[in-house]
């Protein structure tokens, strides 16, 4: 556990909502009120929620693009090296660099690298696998994968103040507010 977390035994405040609409509205209001270290949790993806918590751009597509290109290039270069440099075999007088035959493996490796990097890149950027996260300390959070929607304001937010933030969250009419131990 890092020093900052040890100083601050509270991870943040968690507000619980009943519907995706309430969560989205609450997230927009909280972000609008100047809180930046916030996150929202839902059992399924909600359109616009990431924008509402101030997360606009992810780099998964960039990772996939780069890895896909690496896959395609390495596939083609591998075949070129094998067929022209390391192990040239003359088959029916065809040129060693018979590129049309190399398209398929190039294509397959592009897909393979791109696809695997989409999954691995998504998990890595999300910081998963993550064996411990403070939000799971709140018992009600088990329903975040069921039918409840949660908004968390982290205590490392510059605007965070235990009492005032709680008052603010109350104003959003949540079902419940709980403190998240870190």
């Amino acid at each position: 556990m890092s020093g900052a977390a040890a100083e601050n035994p509270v991870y943040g405040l968690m507000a619980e909502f009943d519907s995706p609409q309430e969560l989205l509205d609450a997230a927009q209001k909280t972000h609008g009120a100047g809180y930046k270290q916030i996150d929202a949790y839902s059992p399924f993806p909600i359109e616009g929620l990431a924008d509402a918590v101030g997360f606009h751009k992810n780099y998964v597509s960039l990772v996939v693009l780069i890895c896909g290109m690496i896959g395609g290039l390495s596939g083609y270069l591998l075949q070129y090296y094998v067929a022209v440099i390391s192990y040239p075999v003359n088959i029916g007088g065809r040129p060693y660099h018979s590129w049309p035959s190399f398209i398929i493996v190039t294509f397959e490796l592009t897909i393979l690298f791109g696809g695997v990097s989409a999954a691995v890149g998504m998990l890595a950027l999300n910081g998963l696998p993550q064996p411990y996260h403070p939000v799971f300390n709140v018992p009600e959070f088990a329903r975040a994968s069921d039918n409840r929607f949660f908004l968390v304001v982290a205590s490392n937010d510059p605007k965070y103040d235990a009492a005032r933030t709680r008052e603010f969250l109350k104003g959003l009419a949540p079902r419940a507010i709980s403190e998240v131990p870190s």
Partner: protein
Amino acid sequence: MATQTQIPVEDQRPPVIEPGHSFSTIGEKVVNIVLKRPVSLGWIFGFLVMFSVMNVLLLAMGYLFLKGTGIWGITIPIGWGFAIINFVWWIGIGHAGTLISAILALLRQSWRNSINRFAEAMTLFAVACAGIFPLIHTGRPWLAYWMFPYPNTMNYWPQFRSPLIWDVFAVSTYFTISLVFWFVGLIPDLATMRDRAEHPFTRGIFGMLAMGWRGSARHWHRYETAYLLLAGLATPLVLSVHTVVSFDFAVSIVPGWHTTIFPPYFVAGAIYSGFAMVLCLAIPIRAIYGMEDFITMRHLENSGKVMLATGLIVGYGYFIEAFMGWYSGNTFDSFLLWNRLHGPYAFWYWGLLITNIVIPQVLWLKKFRTSTFWLWVISLVVLVGMWLERFIIIVVSLQRDFLTSSWGMYYPTKWDWMTYIGTIGMFLTAMWLFVRILPMVSIAELRTLLPEAHVHEGEEAHK
């Protein structure tokens, strides 16, 4: 900025989810099959039967490794027998899973959401069955790794101009991407399982598999991008796999194989047999596990329509093959057509036309498309028909080619049949286990279909 408050459902069609479900009941219904439902005697009995059939495969393979491929019916000129027939058949069946999960996702067909999970599982198991055949067909499967390019002391590299090496890459990529796609789709549902499991052991297992997924908005954002990209990558992949499989044939000069219609015709046939397998599994599963709410008549009818459409493409393929046999004026091509219609395997060719082309035409009638019984029967017929298609393509083409002195016949032996039936046992054993240990429909995706999952943008503009 379009705001949407409910799912657009055309009046006449049955819904994708039966009314009356909430976020919670969807999860409960799917999760309880795994966590709460007691293991029934029927399940145990079925499992034992399937597991025994799978052991027939192990037996046949064990004897094969002891004796070599001589125990099969393959001879010269028919060097490709059951192994390749079954390989093509199984890998084709796998295609429906990827079509449902990737192509229909890109086309925003929301009805796919309740059948994609088990269709993807079906893909994985079918490709696993398919993969066995080329492996054991090599004769020395313990040296199969020679097909992969790696620096070795023999100073040898694979021949990249050979369609058989393309196959190695296509099939192994297909399996890997299908597995990744399936697992990525499972992650949020594994978290639901983790949160619902009561026993510490199940909780621990699902907890490890869910990897700490907590449904953060940031995570969902990356997740959706990754899922969309995977769908986008899997779409050309699935079309390429059976194309490459068809190249195994089309690149050669054997009459009946050497034709440019093979790639699209193989892909259509693959999807055809795949949807037949989806229906074949979905109809009993929805009845046994009470999934009629999620796998509605709409799904079954749509699958029937896909079968009808792809079946017609396959029929067009047969027609073009026959037409080219006549129109090319090539002696060997026109003889192939004659041999199919009147040769020693004519019975099976006519059987193929009846099972694959004639009988499925009843799907034009709504009465058959909306009857679970008839859909199930037709899907079985199509599965048989597609297997016969591969038999005809492989055996009849090789049986009598250019030199009459090298004509021959192909008779599968009991070991051929044991291997084939054994893979069906392996496939069903895996499905049997799958429905009891993992959520068989995608909970998170089904939830997004409920009207209350749709939100309006608030005062802050979107993007």
